[in-house]
């Protein structure tokens, strides 16, 4: 390619990288969800609140799988542990203050994920993806069995009638109030995750996802990075569990179980992993489609939903977000490449012309 006749690849790719779709999608969702309770009936606001809480959980899965390459079937374990933990705080100690129960749920999620992550990820040899997937799946299954069999946790019946969450003398009841609490929490956590995955730490995660074995030879302590992301995601899942327990007023043994863990994986795959917003879209889409199908096709809706999930995962592995977001944007850029050609290329010396492909 002669340098004067057509735009250089450097110019071309800078122009391409300027077309960012993700911020537009983020802004659109933020705007829509800011006003939803004003236009929806109360029962729908309650439904969407649940969707927002589940979006928080899907976000935690996207962090571990979409960014750190850890196939975790244990997000429900952290979600459920924190749900049970905060339910017990409310039932046995009468603690319902938002300023205690939400931080407590976060800490429970963090500690359970630290314990499991330490065991699975920080062994002498780097674990395989299958080992971690089976390890987290086993953890989730064990928690389900434990909850079902332990009388103190309510056995099969779980813990019903959890008292309402409070903020001082104010009761945080389901409806618009709880909606905005869940919404604010989701936005805050999303921004935190966004900051993290676009930082230099995010670049290390991108490197780890692309070529885990290679980056260790630069000096990255890959297993430590993984354990950090796994624990952070566990804390987020725990926070979602605390919110869920108080929103539903009930926790049951399915909450930390395998089925729920798998559901989170499907949400994220459906929406598309590795963009954060894809996971949120996945939850919104699956839950709304399920809601509508269950209303209109009462007998066959699970089959229709299953087929839809299969079709998306088979024919659009990058998920719904992949329909509008390019691979280049999904991976992202982390530095600030020069927007004009540097001196060497401008001079167009013999050696540089040779260097062009």
């Amino acid at each position: 390619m002669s340098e004067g006749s057509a735009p250089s690849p450097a110019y071309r790719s800078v122009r391409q990288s300027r077309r960012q779709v993700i911020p537009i999608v983020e802004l659109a969702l933020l705007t829509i969800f800011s006003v939803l309770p004003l236009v929806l009936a109360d029962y729908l606001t309650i439904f969407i609140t649940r969707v927002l809480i589940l979006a928080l959980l899907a976000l935690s899965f996207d962090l571990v799988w979409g960014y750190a390459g850890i196939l975790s079937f244990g997000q429900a374990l952290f979600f459920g542990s924190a749900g049970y933990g905060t339910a017990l705080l409310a039932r046995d100690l009468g603690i319902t203050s938002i300023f205690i129960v939400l931080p407590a749920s976060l800490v429970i999620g963090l500690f359970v994920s630290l314990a499991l992550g330490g065991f699975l990820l920080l062994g002498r040899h780097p674990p395989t993806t299958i080992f971690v997937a089976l390890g987290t799946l086993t953890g989730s299954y064990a928690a389900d069995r434990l909850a079902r069999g332990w009388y103190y946790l309510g056995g099969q019946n779980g813990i019903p009638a959890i008292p309402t969450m409070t903020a001082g003398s104010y009761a945080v009841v389901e409806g618009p109030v709880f909606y905005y609490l869940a919404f604010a929490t989701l936005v805050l956590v999303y921004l935190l995750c966004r900051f993290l995955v676009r930082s230099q730490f995010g670049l290390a995660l991108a490197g780890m996802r692309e070529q885990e074995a290679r980056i260790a030879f630069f000096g990255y302590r890959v297993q430590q990075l993984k354990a950090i992301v796994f624990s952070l995601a566990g804390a987020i899942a725990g926070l979602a569990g605390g919110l869920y327990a108080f929103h539903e007023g009930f926790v049951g043994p399915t909450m930390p179980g395998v089925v729920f863990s798998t559901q989170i994986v499907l949400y994220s795959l459906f929406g598309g992993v590795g963009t954060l917003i894809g996971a949120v879209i996945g939850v919104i889409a699956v839950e709304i489609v399920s809601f509508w199908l269950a209303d209109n096709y009462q007998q066959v809706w699970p089959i229709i939903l299953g087929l839809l999930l299969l079709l998306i995962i088979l024919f659009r592995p990058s998920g719904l977000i992949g329909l509008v977001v390019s691979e280049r944007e999904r991976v992202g850029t982390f530095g600030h490449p020069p927007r004009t050609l540097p001196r060497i290329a401008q001079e167009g010396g013999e050696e540089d012309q040779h260097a062009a492909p």
Partner: protein
Amino acid sequence: MPLLEARGIKKAFARLTALNGVDLTVAENEFHGLIGPNGSGKSTLMKCVAGAEIPTEGTIRFAGRDITAVPPAERARAGLSLKFQITSVLPALTVYDNMLLALQAQNRLSNLIFSRTRGPLHERVLHTLDQFRLADRASDTAAEISHGQQQWLEIAMALAPEPRLLLLDEPTGGMSLQERRLTGELLIPIKRRCSLVIVEHDLDFIRDICDVLTVLDQGSVLESGTVAHVQNSHKVQEVYLTRV
């Protein structure tokens, strides 16, 4: 004290013995070439030194420290850097981000999370890309650049952490004659900064840049010494005339 000292390295894969008691010594600022026919164990030896493989027997000392069973990340932090035989740049990332990824590798975690070194490293990224004639491709993904440029990018990335010992496994593989000549020119200036162990099939290339050569054959050292000494060795000539 030599910078790298490998003694009696054996490496077996099931019934195949890839290395059978190899010794390798590399001094500070020495350019050391590893040559030998295909399957002689050159790449396996490089992998053992870098930590990609753990020797079945033998010890490897680097800067006086026994690193025989030390993980690759810790070896890198001690000053060892490897460019793999198969190009392993990160294709989905831009050339710029590949370089930044390598440069920031040994930063503290808090610096990475708060992107404290992104600004300070910017000039170094551009300077290194400029040195390796990649500055005009900074915004392209690594998948978009030519094979030769990917090789240069990987050498630049391996050099980024300022290692004490650089291990290059066939850095000119798949390059044109002119690209190989340029690669040689790019490598000469690093002699002031670090030692080099290089595996290469192009004997003219290796003769031009190396001080010392070690010839491997069937997992053992056939000959080792200065370039002139190895060139005149009857054993080496025999192997190269009959098997290469």
